[in-house]
C-alpha cells in the first residue's frame, strides 16, 4: 500500500489517468471543456503535475457527473456550512465499491484487519437513510466496515446542534476497557463535544487499546489556539490510550476512500492509488520539499465523476520523499491550514471582500 517510491507511483498512475481523464471528459461536458481549454492533450502529460488540477470549488458550481443518472447509486455531499452550496458527487456502483475497498485497505495497513467495537463521536442522524450521504456520514459508514458493534457518543438536540451522550460513550468504553476499540469523529466535534466535556465533568476513561481516528475541522481549532499536540495529549488522556493511538487523517469527500493517515512519525502518506502534490502559492508549480503550498490530491478511485486530480483549498508541505522515518515510501506531507484570504491590499480589495471572489 505504501511501498511505491514517488517515481514508481508516477509511472503507475500516469497511464491510468491519461486514459481515465479523457474518458471522463467525454462523459462530463463541463470537465471536457476544462481539459480542452486548460489541459493540453492528455498524451502530452509526462508527469502527474502536468495534469491540470480541478479546483474543488467546481463541484459546488457544476453538476459533474460522468455516468448516466440511473447508474448513480449514491450521492455524496460535502458537509458545508449553512448557506453554502455543498459539493455533490455522483457515485456509481464501481466507484462506491472501489472507494470502500480502498478505505478498508488503508485503515487495515495502519490499525490492523481485526473488526472491533466502534464508537462514533457523532449523532446517529449523521448517517441518514437513503442514497444521499454527507461527508461525515460517508466517513462514519466507511470506517464502520471495521465494526462489530456501533455506538453513537453524541446526540442531536436541534438543527445542527449536538451534545455529548457521555453515558452512552462511557458505558461503551467501560464495557470494552481492556479491548481494542475504534473511535471516530470529526476533530472539532471530538474536541468540543467529547474531550472538553469529559474534562469539564472530570471524567477519564481506561480505554487502553482504543484507537481514535479523527479528521477535519482544524481551522476552528486553530482559531481557538488548540494545536495538534494539545489535541492529541488531551484526547489520549481522556480516553486513557497512548498518544500514538490518536490518529489524524486528511481526506475530502470529493475523493472518498482516499485518505491520508498520520504515520508513526506524524506525517501523512498517500496510498498506492493516490498521490499528493504541493503547489507553490505564487507559480502553482510543484513546490520543493519543505516549501509550503497549496495541496493537490490525486486519486484513481472515482470513475463516475472527474474527482481524480483536485486542487484543494488547503495548505500543506511535503516533508519527505521516499525516506519518512516510518519506512513508508512516496511523498510524506503535513497539513498546515486552510488557504486564508490575504490581508486587504488596496482600496479595490474592499469591493472584492464585499462581493466575494470565485
Amino acid at each position, binding site marked *: 500500500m505504501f511501498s511505491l517510491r514517488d517515481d514508481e507511483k508516477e509511472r503507475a498512475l500516469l497511464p491510468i489517468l491519461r486514459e481515465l481523464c479523457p474518458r471522463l471528459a467525454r462523459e462530463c*461536458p463541463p*470537465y471536457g471543456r476544462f481539459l480542452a481549454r486548460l489541459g493540453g492533450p492528455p498524451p502530452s502529460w509526462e508527469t502527474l503535475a502536468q495534469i491540470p488540477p480541478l479546483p474543488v470549488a467546481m463541484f459546488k458550481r457544476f453538476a459533474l457527473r460522468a455516468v448516466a443518472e440511473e447508474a448513480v447509486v449514491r450521492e455524496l455531499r460535502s458537509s458545508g456550512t449553512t448557506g453554502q452550496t455543498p459539493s455533490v458527487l455522483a457515485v456509481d456502483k464501481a466507484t462506491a465499491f472501489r472507494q470502500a475497498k480502498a478505505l478498508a485497505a488503508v485503515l487495515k495497513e495502519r490499525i490492523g484487519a481485526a473488526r472491533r467495537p466502534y464508537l462514533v463521536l457523532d449523532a446517529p442522524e449523521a448517517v441518514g437513510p437513503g442514497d444521499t450521504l454527507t461527508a461525515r456520514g460517508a466517513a462514519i459508514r466507511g470506517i464502520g466496515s471495521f465494526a462489530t458493534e456501533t455506538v453513537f457518543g453524541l446526540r442531536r438536540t436541534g438543527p445542527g446542534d449536538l451534545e455529548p451522550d457521555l453515558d452512552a460513550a462511557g458505558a461503551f468504553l467501560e464495557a470494552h476497557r481492556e479491548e481494542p476499540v475504534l473511535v471516530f469523529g470529526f476533530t472539532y466535534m471530538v474536541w468540543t463535544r467529547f474531550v472538553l466535556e469529559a474534562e469539564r465533568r472530570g471524567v477519564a476513561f481506561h480505554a487502553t487499546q482504543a484507537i481514535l481516528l479523527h479528521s477535519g475541522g482544524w481551522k476552528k481549532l486553530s482559531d481557538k489556539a488548540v494545536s495538534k499536540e494539545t489535541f492529541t495529549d488531551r484526547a489520549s488522556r481522556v480516553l486513557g490510550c497512548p498518544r500514538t493511538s490518536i490518529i489524524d487523517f486528511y481526506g475530502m469527500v470529493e475523493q472518498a476512500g482516499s485518505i491520508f493517515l498520520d504515520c508513526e512519525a506524524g506525517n501523512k502518506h498517500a496510498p498506492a492509488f493516490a498521490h499528493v502534490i504541493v503547489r507553490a502559492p*505564487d507559480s502553482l508549480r510543484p513546490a520543493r520539499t519543505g516549501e509550503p503550498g497549496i495541496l493537490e490530491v490525486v486519486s484513481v478511485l472515482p470513475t463516475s465523476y472527474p474527482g481524480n486530480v483536485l486542487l484543494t483549498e488547503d495548505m500543506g508541505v511535503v516533508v519527505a520523499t521516499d525516506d519518512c522515518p516510518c519506512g513508508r515510501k512516496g511523498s510524506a506531507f503535513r497539513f498546515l491550514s486552510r488557504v486564508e484570504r490575504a490581508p*486587504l*491590499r488596496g482600496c*479595490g480589495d474592499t469591493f472584492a471582500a464585499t462581493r466575494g471572489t470565485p
Partner: protein
Amino acid sequence: MRVHHFLATGETRRLDSLEPILEALTREREPAAERKIDHVIACHEDFGRRILEDARTRSIDGVAFLSAWLRRENLEATLALSLHGLGRAALDGFVPHGRGAFLAARPQGLVAMWLAGNLPTLPVFSLVPALLAKDVALLKLASADPAGTHALISVLAESEGGSVRGADLVRQAALVWFDHREKDLNERLSLAADARVVWGGRAAVNAIGALPRQPHATEAVFGPKYSLAVLGRKRLEREEGLDAVLAAIARDAAVFDQRACSSPHTVFIEKNGRLGLEATGERLARHLEALPPKRGQDAHTSLAIASARAEWAMSEGRSVIVPGLEPSWTVCLDRETSLKAPVASRTLFLTEVASWREILPILGPEVQTCGISFEDDEEARAFAERAGLRGVARCVRPGLMHLYESPWDGKMLLDPLVRWVTLRP
C-alpha cells in the same frame, strides 16, 4: 500598549492612548499654516524624486506612479481645480474674489484618516492633499506592519523644498495602527477630528460612520468601488493605435496588482465587424504577457485565479485564455452583460456587448472609473454623460485609470480639508 506609532526615524513607538500624538499634532497646527504652498509643493516634488532613488523605497509597488503624481505640475493642477479657480495663493492667505471681497482657504485642522488595505503608497496619496491644505493628520493604517509606508515617510522626512523641510511635514502627520475593535481609540480619533477621511469596505465605512464626531467635522468617504473598461466598435475596427489601447488596459490592470478602486476588472468590447471576442482576447493576452513579472503572489489569490479559470473554461458560452498553469495573467471571455467579481492579479474579464448602451443599467455609484476608448469624442462624451448619471465618477482613457486626481470618487480632494474664510473689509 495598544497603539503602534510609526516614526519617521523608522522606529515604532508603543503607546496606550492617542493623547501624546494628538497633543503633538495640535502644536504643529500653527507652524504648518505658516508654510508657503509653493515651498510645500517643492518639498513634495523632491520627495517624489528621492523615492525613486532611495534603496528603501525604489522597489516598493506603485512607487513610480507615486513619484509621477508628486510632480509639481500635477500638484499645481490638482490645487488649481480644487480651489475653485482662486489659485493656490488662497492657501497662503486672502486672495481677491470679486469686488471688495477676499477669500482664503485655511486648514480645516486635524484630519483623521482611516486607511484600507496595505498597499504602501495609499496612505501617502491620502496624506498629501492634507499636507497641501496645511492640515495636521492622524492616519490610522490598516496594517500593523506597514513597512513600505513607513519607509516612504522616512524618505519624506529627508526631503526639502525652499524653506520647507520634509521633517517639518512629517511632524504634521502621525501614522498609527491599532486594532479596529478598539472602540475607545476609534471614538477618540473621530472626536478629535475636524475632518474625517474614510477609505474602506462597506463594513468599515459603516462602523466608522457610526462613531461620534464633532458637529463641524467635514467628511470624505471613499467606499468600496469597482472599475471597468469600455472599447467602442469603431475603435476596435481601426487597427492603428489599438495595441496601444490594449497595452494601456493591461498596464492599468497590473498597477497595484489590480487591487485599487480604479483597477479595471471587466473590459466591455462592442461587437464589431473586424475583431471578434476571441481575437480581441488574444491581443489583450499578448499585452498581459509582455508585462514585467509579478512579485510573488499569495495562495488565496492563486486559488481564486485557478477557480475563475476553471469556471470560465467549464461554462458553455464562456472561454478563457491563459499562459499555462502559472497564474501570471488570465483573460476570461464571455458575452454576459455583468460586472464580474474581482479576482485581481492580472485577471481580466473580456465581455462582448452589442452596444455600450447595454451596460448602462449595470452601472451604479459603486463604479468609480471607466477606462474608455471610443473613436470619436462625441461618443465618449455621450457615454460619460449617461454613465455619470448612473453614478460613475470618472471616464478616462486607458492608461489614466489610476491617475489620482481631483475630483476623486466625485469629490474635490481639498473640499473637506480646507475652510473658506471671507473678508470684506
